[in-house]
């Protein structure tokens, strides 16, 4: 007779009432199971309280004011206002994929100051070590020669760079030689206070935009402050918050790329129409235009009963659509910037947005 399958044998044995010991054992097992289920159900605390260290990208010295970047290469720009109308500017320039030698970047600034270029081997002799965050960098102190022509005479640039794991960082302090002498130590202290790990993120991003999992949310478009004018927002523009000089901002994404739309306000005439347009030209790699070219680049429109100017600028890669609205002694800037194709895509939406503005 072939041996019985053990499984069959086990289940074919006569069913009988279990002994008290076994019943207790079973009760124990079920108790453990219940405990596991119970602990699982309770794992989501209703209220959690915890502390999170703030990301402090740098310690901002007194008298330094964050201003709008004048170049797309800059991560941040600060203005230092001194007495007697003296001023200086500090720029942070991240270069994550620097393809050229550090000396070549420094040479660009040397060229500005009418100084001769240096070679790679001169870097060590012409610069001093400086602490940038928790790393050691190099610092150059460049002063324009007395014979430098025009506005460069008496100008000075103190620049420092460091190679960090997340790329090369340049920091540039520029202004009049005499004024910078008093700012040099402050600049050195600022460099030491920089947290290179959180610098880019803290400055350039609205934290919540990156904090949700990467799935597309439902459309949201909100005019959030009573101080701002009202407008009709295109449905696909997503609010990305306000920051230093930007009163409101939005992002419009699509196959052609992302367009950043910003709303800002400056006092008075904000330097005039032409300088502002030329500043934007510089941002997208276009040559400056003259007063005579203005009619070709601008269109006069009416925003909420007041004259305003619509501007479209197309660079080789990037483009800008903007509306400039002088209103009650202030100048409002509504600006969309991104890849040329993406700006073209948003052109009609931007026009509709601009026309809907109500102060």
């Amino acid at each position, binding site marked *: 007779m072939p*041996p019985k399958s053990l499984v069959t044998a086990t289940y074919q044995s006569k069913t*009988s009432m279990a002994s008290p010991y076994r019943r207790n054992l079973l009760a124990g097992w079920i108790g453990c199971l219940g405990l596991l289920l119970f602990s699982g159900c309770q794992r989501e605390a209703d209220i959690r309280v915890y502390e999170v260290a703030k990301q402090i990208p740098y310690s901002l010295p007194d008298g330094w004011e964050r201003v709008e970047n004048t170049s797309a290469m800059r991560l941040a720009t600060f203005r230092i206002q001194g007495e007697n109308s003296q001023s200086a500017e500090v720029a942070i320039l991240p270069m994550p994929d620097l393809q050229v030698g550090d000396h070549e970047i420094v040479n660009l600034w040397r060229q500005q100051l009418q100084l001769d270029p240096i070679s790679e081997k001169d870097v060590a002799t012409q610069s001093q070590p400086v602490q940038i965050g928790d790393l050691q960098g190099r610092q150059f102190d460049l002063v324009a020669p007395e014979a430098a022509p025009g506005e460069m005479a008496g100008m000075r640039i103190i620049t420092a760079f460091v190679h960090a794991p997340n790329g090369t960082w340049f920091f540039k302090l520029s202004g009049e030689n005499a004024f910078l002498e008093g700012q040099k130590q402050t600049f050195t202290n600022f460099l030491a206070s920089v947290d290179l790990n959180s610098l880019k993120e803290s400055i350039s991003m609205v934290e919540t935009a990156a904090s949700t999992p990467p799935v597309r949310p439902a459309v949201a478009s909100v005019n959030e402050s009573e101080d701002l004018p009202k407008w009709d927002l295109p449905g696909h523009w997503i609010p990305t918050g306000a920051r230093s000089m930007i009163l409101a901002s939005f992002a419009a994404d699509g196959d052609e790329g992302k367009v950043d739309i910003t709303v800002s306000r400056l006092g008075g005439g904000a330097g005039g129409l032409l300088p502002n347009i030329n500043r934007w030209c510089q941002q997208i790699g276009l040559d400056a235009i003259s007063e005579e070219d203005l009619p070709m680049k601008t269109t006069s429109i009416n925003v909420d009963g007041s004259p305003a100017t619509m501007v479209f600028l197309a660079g080789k890669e990037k483009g800008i659509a903007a509306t400039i609205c002088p209103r009650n002694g202030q100048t409002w800037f509504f600006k969309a910037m991104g890849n040329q194709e993406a700006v073209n895509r948003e052109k009609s939406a931007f026009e509709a947005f601009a026309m809907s503005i109500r102060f």
Partner: protein
Amino acid sequence: MKWIWQTITSLKLTVTCLSFSMLIVFVGTLAQVDQGLYLVQDRYFKSLFVFWGPAGSSWQIPVMPGGYLVGILLMVNLIAAFMAKFKWTRKKIGICISHLGLILLLLGQLATDLLSRESAMEIKEGGTRSFSSDFRLNELVLIDETSPSEDTVYAVSEGLLQSKKGAIIDSGKLPFTLKVESFWPNVALTGSLEDGQGQLKEDHADYQKVDATTGFSNVYLKPIPPATSMDERDTRAAVIEVMDGDTSIGKWFVATVLDPQSWTHNGSTYSIGMRAKRYYENFSLTLLKATHENYTGTDEPRNFASRVQLRNASTKENRELLIYMNHPLRYQGLTFYQYQMTAGEMVQRRGLEPSSTFQVVKNPTWVTPYLACIMVGAGLTIQFLIHLVGFVRRRSQMKPSI
């Protein structure tokens, strides 16, 4: 009492449970087409009963057992039968190990379901993150930003918000009393819908203005059904009244797609917002480089890789490592899988900022299925060998018949 014992130890119960398991898997898989993965998981697998009700009606009846009920019954049946019928002898040690392996498998899956979590950590190139965000769960956060060095976060679960809709949350853990004026599981939002005469535009007639007095007050919303696609996420929204004792400080409209809103009260700065539930860790990852390469001339991905810097102040670790397809980072009980990526030539052309997203999995019981399978396999092998040895021994003792 006897019939109960006979029922829970019966093979009929085993077969019934296994049949229902197959039915749940079949019906649940079909239901995913309309309801999406997450909803089906909740309704069919993570439930004691599967409910059904006519479309549009408020009542529902249980129509079949859910995954939890079937799993629990199956395990109770297995344990009970094992203890009632199994005789502890050396010859049955293999059966014993196999059954223990099966029990471990069932318990392990239940524990995985209850204790594991999945979240996403998105980092822009050059950026640093020390937290991940839950794929599905959200929370209301009240943040005390007064301290220059750290924020105190009071996070209220969305489950509590839903259960306290229209009621007050008065907890000693919170700095304020919160009144949940409204709570919506999913909404579509828009702003500035009036046509100049204070009327809603025609195509948005089904939107309602939120009842907020502070912050985002000019917002219109429309409740919509939960998202069913894996690529979409519900927009949770609520109107919360913050009160200091009996005094109202203001009513805020919060939603997962909106930024937190700040205010000051008695010299302290607070912000309130709704966001994906965050899990903070005691270490950080910095994305140094995101690489996305395709085979030349095709859209076929050849390489997804993220070079990251791991920093842990408590262990003084500061090292660089590479996370790429099928090579996750395992650290402190968490596994970081390369999940999504915004990088490569196309992204550069579009002017987007390169970023990388990791799926962060915490599963404290990940070892149980491996252990269970080893136990079942070893038990069956041992049992087979016991029989084989016995059989060979008996054969060798038999006298050959001529």
